[in-house]
């Protein structure tokens, strides 16, 4: 199983090479993998039907509770079959659609990675592994959406899709981690078995909100739906795959997957039910406003995602059955429709439905398949879509608390979708042939195989509902509902409210279709939707981010060294003094005030010298004063028993002065550059550091050290280290490593100075 899941990644590495090697036939060849995977997954059907769920164990990072365990149950199997099944057709389709395209080889590479990621996502039994694959789908779909990357629009759309889904993904990660910690396990099979632990935990609300943030963004729920139509920038095979069975369904998958663990509460019901219903309605409405064939399909996808979310939220038996049925139905017709749309686009060169017409004669197979798939989309018998729609109405009617609201929105959506299905299936193909950029003719077999098969399946499943019911939908429902349910799918449920609603929907759809151009005209004048929609929100927040980033960076990183230094010094002062007063209780130990007048005088001269150096207006005067301060410091060392320090200080001071003199001779004199106010401010900052240091010394002055390590060093100095100058012995023996480092500092400074002076590259600045 693990190999099956990861095989996509492996093939991805070789796909570009294979594509180049096999040229036009590569699509067929490469499709063997998803096809075999389909067969492989199908082989699990009996076991799953029997046992409900199979967990296959593979370890990965046990220390972090991350495993590669695979959970094969009805839900994951349904998805796995869709992914591999539809994937098979997509791969062949892409071979035709992108024939000879410069990027076809890498396209296959990304596509297989994406497929593998999707499989991993739906099959993972581990929350974190699931997330790993979740993010991989985001990234790979980013690469797919931005496939035509030299087009600015495509890049923008890809980025948008990525940011929205990854933003949600990060929330999801937090939610999943919380689930894992709360439930005490990161294995789905265990988490879902103990749903009450989650629901009773105080973190439950947070978990739900975080997880749903991930699911809603991924599955394009209102108000995050805007990225999805933009993702149409991708080539059609990608759209078909992303929107029918995979990427966008990941959110739905996860909601369904976690339903046994998180569902069954009011929060879940209202959030999913209402957001889903609104999404459903928004999708339908926006579809009705659109003229691009891919845009229409994108909005109907949003509708479908909303529907699924709503159904999972409702969570009744009927709703779950409806959800899984709808899921399958949608995957079948939507993939077909996308591929057909691509075929039309590919052959005519336009996506605008208003510019298409009369293709029936030239593209008969396309037309036929489009009709079947569209009928399923519209929810007309005898297609599988009809069954799904019936079940949906049944579920909305039975929804606890929000039945009226969701039923109403469902009806409205159904009408609009029926209309759009008709628009899609009829307008491009009927009427008189219109002038298009390319001369249209029927698409090649590689591009028609998928739609034809999938459309046929819509028909077959509609007529023979027991096939899907028995094979996977039933198991999937069981997985989502949390316990086994009887699932039967037929076209005819008798005369009941759902049927009435269906009829209403179709009638309304027909009306809308007939007056579509008027409707379109009216709706497209409602531009406020574009101006105030959530996409504006995205744009505004991107602008805000840009502004904030610019403002913050220019403010903080403003280029003024003294700002940097002031901030650094003040941070030092505040943190140190705060701790000094609050934690240490402001200790001050003056100690004995024993000093001679000359010690005092030397100390005073050092201070006065430092102050004079810092205010003098003569550059070399400052250097000379510095020299004096240096001699003063040397005197202090000598006065307090440090002859070596005295000598070193004197030598270093002398050399420093020499260096300064050598260097400064080209530099101009000081100018009074700063204002008096600035000088006062700087004096305050500088003074605060001075006060801090004084206080620190006075505080530490009070600590008596019992036995410093230097006592032992002194004792060893002569007998063990053969030296009478203990300081020198420390330097060359006890702490030779310090001195070695010190040497390298001096040496490095030498090299650095040499390089700086001698290596004068062209000045590339300004």
């Amino acid at each position: 199983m693990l190999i099956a899941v990861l095989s996509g990644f492996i093939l991805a590495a070789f796909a570009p090479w294979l594509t180049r090697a096999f040229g036009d036939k590569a699509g067929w060849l490469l499709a063997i993998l998803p096809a075999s995977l389909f067969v492989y997954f199908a082989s699990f059907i009996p076991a799953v039907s029997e046992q409900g769920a199979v967990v296959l164990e593979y370890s990965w990072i046990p220390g972090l509770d991350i495993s590669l365990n695979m959970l094969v149950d009805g839900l994951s199997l349904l998805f796995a079959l869709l992914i591999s099944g539809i994937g098979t057709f997509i791969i062949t389709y892409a071979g035709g659609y992108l024939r000879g395209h410069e990027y076809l080889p890498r396209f296959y590479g990304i596509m297989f990675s994406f497929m593998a990621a999707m499989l991993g996502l739906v099959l993972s039994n581990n929350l974190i592994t699931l997330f790993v694959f979740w993010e991989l789908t985001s990234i790979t779909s980013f690469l797919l959406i931005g496939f035509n990357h030299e087009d600015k629009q495509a890049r923008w759309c890809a980025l948008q899709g990525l940011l929205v889904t990854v933003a949600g993904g990060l929330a999801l990660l937090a939610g999943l981690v919380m689930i894992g910690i709360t439930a005490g396990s990161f294995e789905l099979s265990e988490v879902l078995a103990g749903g009450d632990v989650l629901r009773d935990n105080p973190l439950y609300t947070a978990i739900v909100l975080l997880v749903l943030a991930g699911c809603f963004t991924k599955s394009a729920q209102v108000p995050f739906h805007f990225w999805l139509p933009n993702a149409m920038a991708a080539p059609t095979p990608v759209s078909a795959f992303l929107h029918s069975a995979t990427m966008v369904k990941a959110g739905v998958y996860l909601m369904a997957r976690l339903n046994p663990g998180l569902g069954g509460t009011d929060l879940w019901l209202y959030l999913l039910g209402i957001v889903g219903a609104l999404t459903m309605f928004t999708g339908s409405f926006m579809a009705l406003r659109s003229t691009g064939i891919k845009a229409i399909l994108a909005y109907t996808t949003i509708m479908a995602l909303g529907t699924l979310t709503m159904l999972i939220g409702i969570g009744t038996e009927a709703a779950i059955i409806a959800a899984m049925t709808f899921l399958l139905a949608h995957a079948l017709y939507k993939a077909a429709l996308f591929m057909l749309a691509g075929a039309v686009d590919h052959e005519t060169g336009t996506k605008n439905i208003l510019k298409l017409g009369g293709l029936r004669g030239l593209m008969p197979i396309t037309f036929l398949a489009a009709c079947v798939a569209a009928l399923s989309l519209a929810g007309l018998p005898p297609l599988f879509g009809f069954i799904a729609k019936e079940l949906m109405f049944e579920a909305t009617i039975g929804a606890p608390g929000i039945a009226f609201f969701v039923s109403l929105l469902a009806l409205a959506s159904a009408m609009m979708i029926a209309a759009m299905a008709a628009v899609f299936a009829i307008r491009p193909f009927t009427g008189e042939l219109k002038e298009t950029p390319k001369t249209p003719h029927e698409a090649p077999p590689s591009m028609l195989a998928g739609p034809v098969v999938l459309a046929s399946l819509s028909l077959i499943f509609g007529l023979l509902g027991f096939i899907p019911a028995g094979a996977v939908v039933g198991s999937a429902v069981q997985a989502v509902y949390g316990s086994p349910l009887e699932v039967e799918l037929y076209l005819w449920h008798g005369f009941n409210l759902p049927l009435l609603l269906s009829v209403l929907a179709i009638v309304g759809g027909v009306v809308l279709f007939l007056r579509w151009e008027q409707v379109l005209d009216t709706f497209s004048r409602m531009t406020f939707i574009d101006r105030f929609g959530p996409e504006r929100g995205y744009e505004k927040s991107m602008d805000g981010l840009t502004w904030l980033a610019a403002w913050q960076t220019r403010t903080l990183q403003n280029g003024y060294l003294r700002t940097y230094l002031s901030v650094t010094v003040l941070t030092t002062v505040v943190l140190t003094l705060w701790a000094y007063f609050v934690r240490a209780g402001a200790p001050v130990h003056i100690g004995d005030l024993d000093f001679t007048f000359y010690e005092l005088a030397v100390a005073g001269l050092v201070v006065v010298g430092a102050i004079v150096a810092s205010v003098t207006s003569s550059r070399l005067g400052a250097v000379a004063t510095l020299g004096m301060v240096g001699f003063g410091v040397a005197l202090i060392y000598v006065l307090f028993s440090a002859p070596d320090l005295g000598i070193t200080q004197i030598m270093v001071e002398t050399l420093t002065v020499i260096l300064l003199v050598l260097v400064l001779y080209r530099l101009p004199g000081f100018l009074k550059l700063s204002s008096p106010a600035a000088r006062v401010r700087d004096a305050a900052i500088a003074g605060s550091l001075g006060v801090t240091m004084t206080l620190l010394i006075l505080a530490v002055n009070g600590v008596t050290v019992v036995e410093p390590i230097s006592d032992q060093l002194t004792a060893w100095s002569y007998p063990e280290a053969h030296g009478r100058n203990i300081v020198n012995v420390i330097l060359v023996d006890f702490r030779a490593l310090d001195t070695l480092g010190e040497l390298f500092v001096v040496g490095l400074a030498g090299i650095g100075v040499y390089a700086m002076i001698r290596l004068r590259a062209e000045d590339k600045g300004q």
Partner: protein
Amino acid sequence: MTSMGSLILRTTARFLLPLLLLFSVFILLRGHDEPGGGFIAGLIVSTAFALYLFAFDVARTRELMGADPRFLLGLGLLIATLSGIPPIFFGEPFFTGLWWPIDVPGFGEVKLSTPLIFDIGVYLVVFGAVMTIVLALAEAEE
């Protein structure tokens, strides 16, 4: 011509140079027992050559030094680092002092040792580094 044309300074520099050189060796060797050591000695010898540089010019100073100061710098670092290695052949950690006390006439007991070699490395590094800097600066000026 260089502007530093003081005959008095040149003469003094020539006179002081050997004295300072000798003094630096003295400071180096006795550092272990009295104030001094490689670092101070290195600075003194650098001062001596800096004086010479001030009195004459870069070319003459380089000529007098013989080796490129950067070589002395590297050599000093190498000596200092290598001085820490012999003890490992006696099963001791790096920088363990090895002592070969020799009664050198005129200096009493001269304690030839790895710390002394280390200190000689220090001396060379300081000398090399300071002269690298000073000469580079003086050259840049000229």
